[in-house]
């Protein structure tokens, strides 16, 4: 299992559109991808789950990836986050 921490720098936090991008990205991989925030974990492949967290700007999130293509998956998701949401 691989995990990486990110800080959200986008002004609106993980809002609907960026959430969609993130979920679509995660959906391209076989691995189980989870987003952890504030003591809750949701499946990163589920749009409603991700949006239900209401992650604001400045929040620290952790992405965990488990599966056969975990390395590529984490890399791909990290790229999307860096482009759209934060660092």
């Amino acid at each position, binding site marked *: 299992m691989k995990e990486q921490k990110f800080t959200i720098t986008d002004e609106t936090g993980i809002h609907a559109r960026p959430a969609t991008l993130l979920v679509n990205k995660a959906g391209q991989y076989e691995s189980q991808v989870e987003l952890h925030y504030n003591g809750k974990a*949701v499946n990163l*492949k*589920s*749009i*409603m*789950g991700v949006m*239900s967290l*209401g992650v604001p700007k400045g929040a620290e999130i952790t992405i965990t990836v488990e599966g056969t293509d975990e390395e590529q998956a984490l890399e791909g998701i990290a790229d999307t986050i860096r482009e759209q949401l934060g660092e």
Partner: protein
Amino acid sequence: MVKVRTQDLLDQFKLELIAGKDGVHREIFMSEISRPGIEMTGYFKYYPKDRLQLLGKTELSYYFDLESSERTDRALRLCTDITPGIVITRGLEVPEELVNACNESGVPLLRSPFKTTRVISRLTNFLEAKFAPFTAVHGVLVDIYGIGVLITGQSGVGKSETALELVKRGHRLVADDSVEIRQEDYDRLIGTSPPLIEHLLEIRGLGIINVMTLFGAGSVRSYKKISLIINLESWDQKREYDRLGLEEETLKIIDVDVPKITLPVRPGRNLAVIIEVAAMNFRLKRMGVNAAEEFSERLTTMIKQEKTGLETKVDLDIDID
């Protein structure tokens, strides 16, 4: 983990704040409530000072019988720096010494007009719900004929679509995609929706839809006890699926084992109907009617007859009236 403060009790219940208002933001760490009866006699060795304290008629009438110096002493020792609050029930008169001690130490002193036992049970229920173990699960929770069915499975397998059809057939949606589950007592799992996505359903190609405005208030519920898990998975040729329904699989959520059914998904299989029947069959089993077991017994009897028939060489073709 949620933080519970004495202020939450004030907001939730009909309590009057008498003294120690500096301490209303003190945190309550456990659901147990202490009735300091033995402490009133001066024995503080095992005083559970970090719990909410409750003074009823018995404790207070004993307290009023004490000497003035003893009263001051007990009041001071009751009010420690971590005691989250003292509740006086039945709207009883509040001893002056206690008011002073509470104001000094910042322990909130609250008063309720209700009877002690009622106050205890309501406070305990409230605190237990707050401190209940909690988890979030990826899945859809639907109330089908009164059975809380949690539909799980890989993303994209068709959980939300199945839920939509179930709602269309008159069942009620509790939560889509992310179900928050808390354990009440030792064997009850209660599922709710995260507030942000309550009543919403995401259908690929349509986007987010509001089930309540589309189908009416009767099509949703805010919480439901989870009794059955249905796991949807893509049909796997090599995997063996349950053909009889004699064994019951379970899945552990927090500390509770929940019966689980694995349903293979294949084009042309009407999942909503199958899940509906699964829920009904589950209900029937709980009422004591088990089709699989009954069949198995019938088969056993038949085989036994067949065997004795063979041994005694009775011609089974002859009709017996």
